[in-house]
């Protein structure tokens, strides 16, 4: 078997992986490898040809491929970063040996000192949410359709209904409209959209596409190709309300019904997972429960802005390089971060009190449901460590708060993040 040795091996060459590679290189890792299963670097950014990327990171508005290119150039500028494209990782062992495969080298055995998981996420499917009806052609996840339209140059349908108002669904509503395809409606089972507000405005309202909140699809119709869908309003418990059914004629149903972090490799290693994020439990250095294994980006928790994905990649890259160089030092004591009272997720789930570290801990949080005029509070032992007033809080928009290191010194075994009304 073809054998290679690297200091830091990064699995996945999307935005998290690219930032991790650059950061690992800049923080002293001698040999860095990025393994990417697609034919090019950039991950899902390459099919996101719309703009809106990079406002935080580069202070300008880039397209997805444009954003990716910035990082690809940074990777190319660093001679100690190796990239393997069209390469699939088959197995990762706890001793940090990785088995991968591609057409050029065949089976490859890679030995690493530190591993970073940046596999991103995949789309939830029709089968996962059990939409009844027939099984014709024309039912696609929105991301698969996006790839077909933007990268391969084909249309998935000519008269479209979209289920789910996540960002990809909203973006695809606009994209299909621009291609001359009629978008009949976007249906959302929740009473609010899960996408960014700017996407609801720019992708639906600007194109007069109706958004049916608290609605779902009861059945898909058609034999060869989709001919229509039966829709209905749902009650507060998300059960269809009898008598509200209506039929929408269409030849295509796009699904934007959630993203699932792709953690098959992490699970096989038995790494501890967070049931709410579906990603591994990580500390603020993005190290998982298994020393030397790091994770960043959508594989940890699904982000809405790529800028934060890159940021996490940078953190993971830096400390993976430290780990590879034996610079991590003592673990220090661990503080558990809990999300409660209206806060659904908080990442990192663990804070490691590292001696000499002066960096604030950046917490990424999502709320359970839309709220107005609330206070986000970080508590420990009944003490308030930090408070932030929020005029609006939406599940679709991640809340980012920096917890200064002085505050961390004050605290006990755990901290809790809550919403106060």
């Amino acid at each position, binding site marked *: *078997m073809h054998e290679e040795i690297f200091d830091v091996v990064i699995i996945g060459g999307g935005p998290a992986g690219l930032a991790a590679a650059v950061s690992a290189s800049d923080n002293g890792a001698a040999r860095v490898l990025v393994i990417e*299963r697609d034919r090019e670097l950039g991950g899902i950014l390459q099919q996101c*040809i719309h703009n809106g990327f990079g406002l935080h990171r580069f202070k300008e508005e880039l397209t997805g491929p444009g954003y990716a290119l910035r990082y690809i150039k940074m990777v190319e500028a660093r001679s100690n970063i190796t990239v393997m494209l*069209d390469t*699939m990782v*088959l197995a990762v062992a706890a001793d940090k040996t990785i*088995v991968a*495969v*591609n*057409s*050029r*080298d*065949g*089976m490859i055995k890679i030995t690493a000192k530190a591993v970073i998981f940046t596999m991103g996420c*995949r*789309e939830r*499917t*029709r*089968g*996962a949410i*059990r939409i*009844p*009806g*027939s*099984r*014709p*052609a*024309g039912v*696609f*996840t929105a*991301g*698969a359709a996006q*790839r*077909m*339209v*933007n*990268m*391969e*140059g*084909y*249309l*998935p*349908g*000519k008269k479209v209904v979209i289920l789910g108002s996540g960002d990809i669904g909203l973006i695809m509503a606009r994209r299909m409209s*621009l*291609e*001359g*395809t009629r978008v009949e409606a976007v249906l959302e089972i929740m009473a609010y959209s899960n996408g960014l507000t700017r996407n609801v405005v720019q992708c639906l309202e600007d194109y007069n596409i109706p958004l049916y909140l608290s609605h779902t699809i*009861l*059945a*898909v*119709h058609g*034999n*060869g*190709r989709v001919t229509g869908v039966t829709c209905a309003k749902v009650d507060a418990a998300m059960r*269809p309300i009898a008598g509200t059914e209506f039929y929408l004629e269409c030849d295509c149903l796009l699904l934007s019904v959630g993203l699932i972090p792709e953690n*098959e490799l992490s*699970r096989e290693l038995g790494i501890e997972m967070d049931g709410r994020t579906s990603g591994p439990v990580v500390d603020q250095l993005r190290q998982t429960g298994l020393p030397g294994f790091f994770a960043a980006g959508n594989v940890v928790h699904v982000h809405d802005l790529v800028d934060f994905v890159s940021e996490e990649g940078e953190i993971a890259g830096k400390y993976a390089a430290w780990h590879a160089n034996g610079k991590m030092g003592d673990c220090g004591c661990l503080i558990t971060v809990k999300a409660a009272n209206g806060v659904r997720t908080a990442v990192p789930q663990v804070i490691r009190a590292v001696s000499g570290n002066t960096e604030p801990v950046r917490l990424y949080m999502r709320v359970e449901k839309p709220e107005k005029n609330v206070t986000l509070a970080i508590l420990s032992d009944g003490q308030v460590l930090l408070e932030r007033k929020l005029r609006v809080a939406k599940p679709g928009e991640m809340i980012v708060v920096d917890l200064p290191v002085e505050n961390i010194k004050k605290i006990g075994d755990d901290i809790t993040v809550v919403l106060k009304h």
Partner: protein
Amino acid sequence: MENSWKADVVIIGGGIVGAAIARELGKYKLDTVLLERYPDLAMGTTKANSAILHAGFDAPEGSLKALLNVRGNELYRQLKHELGLELDLTGSLVVATNNEEMDVLAELKVRGQKNGVEGLKIIGREEALTREPNLSAEVVGALYAPTGGIMWPFGAALAFAENAVQNGVEVRINCPVTKIEVIEGKVTGVYTPDGFIAAKYIINAAGIEADNVSRLAGDDSFTIKPRKGEYILFDKAVGNLVKTIVFPTPSKVSKGILVAPTVHGNVFIGPNATDSDDKGDLATTGRGLAEIVARAQKLVPNIPLTSSITQFAGLRAAADCGDFVIRASNLTKGLVHAAGIQSPGLTAAPAIGEMVVGILGELGLELKPNTNFNPVNPPKLVFSQLDDEAKMTAIKENPLYGRIICRCETVTEGEIVAAIHSLCGARTVDGVKRRTRAGMGRCQGGFCGPRVTAILARELNIPITAVIKDTADSQLFFNKIPGSCEVTGDA
């Protein structure tokens, strides 16, 4: 005029039954043609059923179902090796949750013994729970059948057809029979879009449409009533929720909703039973899915609902007489029925093949052995099942085996190309899926679907827009609308 040619035997229907008959006829020096109306084999009942190798204790003694079930079960053990079938003798459990049900199990055991099923055993609560720890705490006992098993029905049908073709049988897809010619009470041939095929013997293995095919030849002696069954399939990550097939105690109409592993490492629940008049209705329903969930939970309470990956429905081709209809037509000479093949039809299929050939012999068809008959199918390369050494060799010989197309199931481009160009090769995206498992995993083709479409287009030399999912009118993608903005890709 129209294209026309001659055959000794025409088989109508390329499901498991038609394919098994074709394979059996391949043992003789005959011109046999198998006609399938769809773009692929096994697209009817064969592709959507419980995929069970039944032990044979359900059907009443003396019925064709009982006889052919037990014989079929026996035949598959050898066929597994000859044809490389995916088949595991996991054993099956029929679970009782009260004493009345235990009485039914005792009856089933006696019936099974009369049918010739070996090794049947009533086990107590303890042993049932040891075998299947996830069973409901309410279990009081079970009937254990060591010869029950699981298999891959599409794979078996394909293997039968491939072996038949290898032994000289012709298989035609996209070839529906539009008319059967009958002169003076005898069949003389069939009309298809490809032309007229003259034949003195016609086998009706048309599944759900077998009554209509029979009527084309002037025989209205039976009716097929579709009975729909719905299923939910779960992610492999669920692991061995059950290791054997778990049936509830059966009712009069059906074997009930079961929880079973698949040969590919998934778990499924289903089927319910809904009588229908629509032979095209393969839609799942909210009510039906809720029904199978509720009933499966009675057997195995912790059904992992959040890990479902797909749902589907199949139609049982139930004949009005309740048993299989395997006989020469009483009304039209030369027509032989292999109809009404509902459960345990999958298990019975190879035995049905033997029986149909016997009937043809009785009708006067000369059965000269095909001395070149080769019972063995060449092995297929399944990349994910190879050891590292074999993987390296495969990639060295063909670099396409180094390119993973389906990430969930680790299927390579090499396997997909082989599936397209092998005997009875895939012509559709679902055809690739059923042969290679590309698209059968947890993302359900979200990632590999467009790539499989592109490979099919390239290998079949057709445009992307002509690639179909399963049936002729199931195109997946359209060209962009002229005048809209163009994006060029390097695919």
